[in-house]
């Protein structure tokens, strides 16, 4: 019962702030609403007992990426700047794309994630398990993909430097 109440509060927060963050016309406000969505998602992870994922969500998304967003907004826009209202012609395809995305994701979640949850017994992984899984090269250990993703980050840093140098 208590868990359900907390779940519904978090769910309502996520939905409301998601809608606010795409409808707000002031860019820093949208960023703030997005931040609330990310923090509430971390709350959902905590509710499930995935503490590691919750802390990663907060430190990477809320503490890292949002700070970068806010920094770039502060450097590029002025207080009082407002985005122009979007015209109907552009709103329609965006709505259609969102509906398609919702359908695809809903299908995947409904048919696959349900199965995984019922097939794999849920237990909270300890920090040691997570560390060994991330830093090993045996079967079911993921050092190689982890390093491959860091190449992606390197590529995006190089790309950012290229864009910045052009100006």
């Amino acid at each position, binding site marked *: *019962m*208590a868990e359900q109440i907390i779940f519904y509060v978090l769910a309502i927060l996520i939905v409301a702030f998601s809608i606010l963050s795409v409808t707000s016309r*002031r860019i*820093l*406000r949208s960023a*703030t609403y997005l*931040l609330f969505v990310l*923090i509430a998602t971390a709350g959902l992870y905590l509710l499930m007992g995935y*503490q*590691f994922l919750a*802390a*990663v969500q*907060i*430190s990477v998304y*809320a*503490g*890292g990426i*949002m*700070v970068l967003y*806010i*920094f770039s907004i*502060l450097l590029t826009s002025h*207080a*009082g700047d407002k985005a122009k209202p979007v015209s109907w012609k552009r709103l329609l395809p965006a709505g259609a794309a969102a509906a398609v995305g919702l359908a695809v994701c809903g299908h995947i979640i409904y048919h696959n994630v349900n199965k995984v949850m019922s097939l794999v017994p849920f237990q*909270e992984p*300890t*920090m*040691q398990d997570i560390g060994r899984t991330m830093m090993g090269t045996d079967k079911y250990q993921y050092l190689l993909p982890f390093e491959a993703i860091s190449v992606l980050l390197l590529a995006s840093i190089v790309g950012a430097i290229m864009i910045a140098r052009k100006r």
Partner: protein
Amino acid sequence: MFDFSIVTTWVDQFLRTYLPEFWVLAIEFVVVGVVMLALYAVIALVLIYFERKICAFFQCRLGPNRVGPYGIFQSIADMLKMLIKEIIPINHTDKLLFYLAPFFVVVASFLTFGAIPFGNGLQAFDFNIGVFYLLAVSSLGVIGILMAGWASNNKYSMIGAMRSGAQLVSYELSAGLSLLTMVVLSGDLQLSTIIEKQSDTWFIFQGHLPAVVAFVIYLIAGHAETNRGPFDLPEAESELTAGYHTEYSGLQFGMFYLAEYLNMFIIASIATTVFLGGWMPFHIGGLDGFNQVMDYIPSVVWFFGKAFALMFLSLWVRWTFPRLRIDQLLHLEWKYLLPINMVNLLIMVGIVLLGWYF
């Protein structure tokens, strides 16, 4: 050692015998929340008095001495003044973000405050990711500061917020890496386990050289994260009036003030927990008689004693050194602290692998 979890489990059992699960949880949530908030406020009041007296001592003054004996009620009078002061509304600002920013700063420091073990069994929640949780939620405070600077629509506030952002983001790295060095030694992130493992000697003695280096780096980086002392250039009053909280008045300013003092306490208590054994008394492995004598001192006294000793160091630094320039600040972090920290981490890994620790 008296284990406070006996009391909390007894209260829990007592409630469970009379009430359904839901109401037990609801009551416990509210009680824990109120107790933590009260503790948060009381510690802030004590710290303000502590800081003013220490500051006066360093400047050869007497400090507050009018309200109550030795001026001990001075900070309560200050608090009342802060509570009833007018909050001045400002035009041409983003009102929502302006009012939200102080809450953000306070909530971020309160989330960190909640996970601190104050004594044997006195911990609100004990995650198995303890240290990582502390690092994660303490990184939220910088968003509040950036928001405050931007929403004030004032050049000084903006510059202060940008400086503060650059400073917090870079020094978080050093603080995180130096805590990671100790995590390598302890082999666990959970705060209760970290303290349990220091029952023979504290980690700063167990890990000798690299632990001392990590301790010093953590104190410097943590001090920089509180925006105080020689690192107070985000609110450098001679150039920026008061930096990011220039436009705030009354209770809103009070919240920034509260969070600043509590951040100092939080940094000191994390350093206490990870390096100096938290509430664990000073034990020497093998000397059982000595250890028993040390156990007679309550765990809460040990914790607050160590935390206040570290805060005294922090105040000493604050009132001794002149303010750094922004380039000196960034040089210190990126050219000295961070490379030293990385080498130190490697040395610690080597020491742990070779078993050269006590």
